[in-house]
């Protein structure tokens, strides 16, 4: 390296780098070279990419505890003191306060955890337990650890949680500092012995360690992804979790996909393209209504496939369009349908397009179809887009989505949305064909000190989850203000606990909420016991915008960037109107002055919308 010019690499960085590199084999060094080049290219093309926070894990000791009634917490506290006393600076964390992605870098870990319920983890450790025992946990060759299990031998599942973690960590390649400790109701004695061993052993090893070894990634990151809209990447499903309460009217899913090895990279604001398959139940309904055989081979545009597959994977069967109406009118000789396409009937046509799916018309207007004609009348199946709800800085090689499942009754039968139903049904071993759809017009301010205002009711909140993650990880100093709305506080507050956490850790500064179907009971005079029945007016985000007008305007004047995401039918329009009012009122401008001011903001990219 010596004979290379080193662009602003301070001595300390350089030293660390050299130290790291020395420990690598030739092969590893070549890989690093290739990888760095790729990183460099990335960096030039756009923003900095994921470089896992190395931290000073090498010397750090982490002590985690999972505790229901406080015993493990107490013991862990004592342990931390012992460690300090032994000259081993330790950080003490409750399991659910531990950033799980740091585990990959962790070097020395002591874990104290009780067993609860019928052999379950304590509530505060359920997340960590699932992570470590789950399939997404990284290999941990560099980790040295010891586990102390707390329990009560009068339970059938004595200390089972601690034991499982101990075994799992070893299985992941980590090495034990001490045998698994198993504390019955007399905890202290066992705990003390275990702590002594673990700490003594740790001191020994710290004496010997040279430069810490790094876990080499399983495969190299190609410099540019070979995947695209046309060649989507089959992304393994990591999680598919309903994130509204059981009694919520509409299902909303949090979907986590893996991009590992795809070389796909995204920015907050980008969308993910998803190639769906049509609901098989719907395809069968088609075949039944049309009295066609799904097995028969049909040739279309030079390709030959079974009809069932054509309808399932190659054609739009949920979205109605004029062309299909015309074809159906012709095929069945339905004049009234044909008339629907005349200009003077456009309101009626609009209604049909809004309310009906093709299957509804097929039922209403019988016709005999030749398979070829049918396929010609249908549009090719198109991918759907979903705002990316994660920041790569926070989640690494994953991408998260927030999906409202289209699944409703109409004309006396069940109706589905193709992609949302497809995603809702994707199970955790499945794969989803995806690609990145960049959205350069929906970007965080390059200047991290700018404030941002995010308006995202319903699933419109998705990109703002990514924004807040990104600003937290990149240490942006600007303030973040989120407006969120949905039906009910109790069941539809998407990512509630994450927002609460963000408010606590200062990565979200203001959160204003509008739940349209909760009564405004609290506002009603306390003497009215029948408040619920009486009060039924609905509150939407635009009302909150007006209420907060003065401060909102101050933020905008101060250079804040403004983002709106979600429903385009009503929300975007009403929110825009509210913004005009706010600016007019508090900047005392005429409405059209306010309009043009917003127009300018749009021009400058300070007012960005991502509506659908």
């Amino acid at each position, binding site marked *: 390296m010596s004979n290379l010019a080193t662009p602003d690499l301070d001595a300390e960085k350089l030293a660390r780098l050299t130290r790291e590199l020395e420990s690598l084999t030739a092969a590893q060094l070549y890989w690093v070279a290739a990888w760095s080049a790729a990183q460099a290219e990335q960096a030039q093309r756009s923003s900095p990419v994921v470089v896992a926070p190395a931290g000073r894990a090498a010397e750090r000791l982490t002590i985690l505890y999972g505790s229901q009634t406080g015993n493990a917490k107490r013991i862990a506290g004592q342990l931390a003191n012992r460690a300090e006393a032994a000259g081993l600076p330790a950080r003490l964390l409750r399991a659910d306060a531990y950033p799980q992605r740091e585990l990959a870098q962790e070097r020395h870990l002591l874990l104290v955890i009780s067993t609860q319920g019928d052999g379950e983890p304590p509530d505060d450790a359920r997340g960590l337990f699932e992570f470590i025992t789950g399939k997404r946990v990284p290999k941990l060759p560099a980790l040295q650890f010891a586990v102390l299990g707390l329990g*009560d031998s009068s*339970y059938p599942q004595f200390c089972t949680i601690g034991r499982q973690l101990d075994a799992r960590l070893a299985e992941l390649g980590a090495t034990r500092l001490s045998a698994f400790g198993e504390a019955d109701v007399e905890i202290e004695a066992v705990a003390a012995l275990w702590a002594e061993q673990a700490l003594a052993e740790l001191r020994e090893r710290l004496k010997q360690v040279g430069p810490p070894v790094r876990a080499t990634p399983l495969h190299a990151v190609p410099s540019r992804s070979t995947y695209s809209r046309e060649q989507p990447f089959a992304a393994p499903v990591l999680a598919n979790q309903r*994130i509204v309460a*059981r009694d919520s009217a509409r299902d909303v899913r949090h979907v986590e996909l893996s991009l590992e090895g795809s070389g796909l990279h995204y920015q907050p604001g980008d969308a993910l393209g998803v190639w769906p398959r049509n609901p098989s139940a719907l395809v069968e309904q088609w075949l039944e209504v049309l009295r066609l055989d799904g097995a028969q081979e049909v040739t279309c545009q030079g390709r030959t496939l079974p009809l069932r597959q054509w309808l399932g994977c190659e054609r739009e069967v949920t979205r109605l369009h004029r062309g299909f109406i015309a074809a159906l009118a012709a095929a069945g000789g339905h004049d009234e349908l044909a008339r629907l396409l005349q200009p003077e009937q456009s309101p009626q046509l609009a209604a049909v397009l809004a309310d009906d799916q093709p299957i509804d018309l097929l039922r209403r207007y019988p016709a005999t179809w030749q398979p070829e004609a049918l396929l010609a009348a249908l549009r090719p199946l198109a991918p759907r887009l979903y705002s990316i709800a994660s920041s790569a800085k926070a989640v690494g090689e994953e991408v998260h989505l927030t999906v409202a499942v289209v699944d409703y009754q109409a004309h006396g039968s069940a109706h589905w949305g193709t992609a949302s139903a497809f995603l809702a049904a994707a199970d955790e071993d499945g794969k989803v064909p995806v690609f990145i759809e960049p959205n350069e017009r929906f970007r965080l301010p390059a200047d991290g000190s700018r404030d941002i205002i995010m308006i995202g009711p319903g699933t419109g909140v998705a990109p703002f989850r990514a924004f807040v993650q990104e600003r937290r990880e990149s240490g942006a100093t600007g303030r973040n203000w989120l407006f969120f709305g949905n039906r009910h*506080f*109790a069941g539809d507050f998407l990512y509630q606990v994450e927002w609460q956490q963000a408010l606590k850790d200062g990565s979200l500064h203001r959160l204003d909420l509008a739940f349209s179907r909760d009564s405004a009971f609290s506002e009603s005079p306390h003497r009215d016991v029948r*408040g619920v029945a009486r009060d039924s007016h609905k509150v939407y985000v635009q009302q909150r915008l007006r209420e907060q007008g003065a401060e909102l305007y101050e933020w905008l004047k101060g250079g804040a960037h403004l983002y709106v995401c979600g429903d385009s039918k009503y929300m975007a329009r009403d929110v825009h109107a509210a913004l005009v009012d706010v600016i007019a009122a508090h900047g005392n401008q005429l409405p059209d002055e306010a309009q043009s001011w917003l127009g300018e903001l749009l021009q400058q990219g300070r007012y960005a919308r991502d509506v659908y």
Partner: protein
Amino acid sequence: MTTKLSHFEHLKAASRFLRGGIAEGLADPVTGAIGDDDTKLLKFHGSYQQDDRDLREERRKQKLEPAYAFMLRARLPGGVVTPAQWLVFDRIAREHANGSLRITTRQTFQWHGIIKRKLKPTIAAIHDALATTIAACGDVVRNVVSTANPVESAAHAEAYAWATRLSAELAPKTRAYHEIWLDGEKLHGDAHPVEEHEPLYGATYLPRKFKIGLAIPPLNDVDVFAQDLGLIAIVEQGVLSGFNIAVGGGMGVTHDDASTYPRLASVIGFATPEQLFHVAEAVIGVQRDWGDRAERQHARLKYTLDRRGLDVFKAELESRLGFALATPREYRFAHNGDRYGWVEGRDGNWHLTLHIESGRLADVGERRWLSGLRELAKVHTGDFRLTCNQNVIVANVATAERERIDAIVREHGLDAYRKQSAIRRHAIACVALPTCGLAMAESERYLPALLPKLETLLERHDLADAPILLRLSGCPNGCSRPYLGEIALVGRGPGRYDLRLGADFSGQRLNQVYRENVDEAAILDALDPLFVRYATERTDGEGFGDFLLRAGILVPPPSRRIPAELVA
């Protein structure tokens, strides 16, 4: 005993007489909860923050906070409710809570599942019904219970009068309650307390909850020996001549912690009605000053007594009183359960005691108990009395009214008790899951499953009408007073309990562990042979608990030793 004050003590001191940040917490729209510390202060206002534990795990996965809701407890001295109040309470249950009214083991009502933004209007509505929730919980004198005994009409009237007076005069005086819930004008903003003080309690209130109960022999339905301060009414020739004073009762225990234990109150003397109030105040005063404020685990009066010594305590008490307590008078308790059906009071009025399983008034299928009592409240001209056995008495019914009452009772399936086994009539279960944050096992929801199994065993041995006190608690805190059950299950974990046996039938002897941390099968296996012997060997009228000791199946519990660490 350590001397470092517990966090809770600092909290009370800094709370500006129980205000803390409750008002701010109520206004926070981002969560259905209030601040952690404020949940502790909220108890003094009669409410507990809880969450539906059935949904906890599911909602965690959904990235939603727990389904927070609040439990509200009314302060109803002596458990007396007017029909007008009943109708308001019933409406609150249906419109603001989970559709049920819960009669507690301290003869008052609880509502469950009140969401945050409805808490204030609900408390206001209770206030408008001339009731309150203040100090129904917290480190203060709780709801004062008194015998629901309807027969001794005159004596009951007096006892009830005393319960009411004690309850009223011993309640906290802070204006915080009015400020926060009733839009009362603010006494002070965030600054230091203005002219507000608690003459009896002081700014840090008591070290722990403090319970007063008043019993009129031969009925011990309040379990007078489970109270911090137990008052045994001495009625001579129909006149109330005074009260025997019992101190230091309590049930709560922590598993595997020998320094905690249930304790029966010790009778230390007799006081005339004139003296009663001073005595009560003095007992509370000594506990206020001597109670352990470092470890809440050891803060109840029972531990204060055992630590300092009963005679030391009594001496201190009498020096504060300026007079000595007279020697206790004779008394005899026959039982601590309720008598169901109609009874005539000495004054010629009739009283109907209805059995309410686990005290839960709700409409489920055939049982339309909530509606039934609503209908009763609409026509009833007397009053209602809740009992410490979680039952309700329709009290003071004129002879002419009985038929109408009976009709409503029948119509709503409230007459079930007629056909019930004796053990069912004598069963008490605490609330436990899903609302109780401390529950380790099911209790109220388990009782309906357990009873038939016990009944089958008992019938097999012709014990169907043997009255046996059965008490279930979902954890060792003992809210159903399980340590006074002839048979008691105390929760340890899902589906697992300690089986305790051997209490008497009148709340005067504690039971003991017979099987530790066992499941249902083991419980039934353990009981079956004991029932066999009881059926064949009992002398007539002999209770199950008494029998187990006489037969030598259980040895009398060793007189409780005071753990060394508790002796000052």
